[in-house]
């Protein structure tokens, strides 16, 4: 018999998106505050060619992880996978939207593996991170 999660996930289904306001304070909390860091030292970031401090790409993996945990719960924390490429800088003050679409469901042992295409867009509609994540439904 299909579980509730398995029954409620269909290929092509868009997951509820997440909106994230990437403030400097949140970047500082994530990366720590250090001199000569492109994440927390604005002058240094500008010297390196960026218009402001950058959020770590890893913050976007945490957002995608949230999307997957909301969908699959423990089936992501044990047996999940994620692969993401960071294709555009995320700056302090950006507003990001995290998207996911179910691309596949396939048997994996006694479970079903759900494959989700994930991507993150900034307030200009530009993709900043792309990838895919998977998790198990038991």
């Amino acid at each position, binding site marked *: 018999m299909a579980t509730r999660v398995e029954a409620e996930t269909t290929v092509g289904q868009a997951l509820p998106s997440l909106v994230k306001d990437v403030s400097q304070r949140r970047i500082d909390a994530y990366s720590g505050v250090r001199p000569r860091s492109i994440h927390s030292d604005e002058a*240094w970031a500008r010297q390196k060619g960026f218009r402001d401090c950058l959020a770590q*790409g890893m913050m976007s993996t945490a957002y995608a992880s949230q999307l997957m945990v909301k969908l699959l719960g423990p089936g992501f924390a*044990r047996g999940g996978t994620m692969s993401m490429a960071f294709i555009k800088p995320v700056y302090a003050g950006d507003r990001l939207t995290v998207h996911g679409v179910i691309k596949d469901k396939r048997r994996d042992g006694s479970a079903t593996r759900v494959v989700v295409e994930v991507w993150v867009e900034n307030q200009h509609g530009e993709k900043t991170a792309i990838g895919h994540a998977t998790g198990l439904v038991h």
Partner: protein
Amino acid sequence: MAGSRTLTEFRKLTLDSLQVGEEFVSDDHLVIPEDIETHRFAVEDDHPWLAEGTAPPTLMANQALHLRHSKYIVHAGLHARMEFNFLEPIRLGMRVRTKGKVIDKYERRGKPYMVTEYVTEDDTGRVLVRGQFTQMIIPEPEAPHGDAR
């Protein structure tokens, strides 16, 4: 001599100085409630991780990403790609460490990159997370070292 130990000699990170096959080991880290609270605030994660005694799956990702700082002076860099395989949940109160190995280095469009595979494990050696990541190396021009992960 009692108390003598080897000091780490740090090298400037460049594509030339980086050795494929080089291995890294992080310090142990005890996962404390403040780690999870800070992560919750930083990425606006409303899941009740602490109530469940578990940690967000990506909580220790920076322990992996920061491995190269244990041997190199990193002027600056950018994170290009990250892969995770979540095998066991990280739990509150665990002591975790990450081991890594440089598996590739290359230049693409004039920019140097390094690829590191990593394993995050608890203090019994049980693997929690494994994967690999790619980082761009921004070489030092003529300035003191900086920090970027």
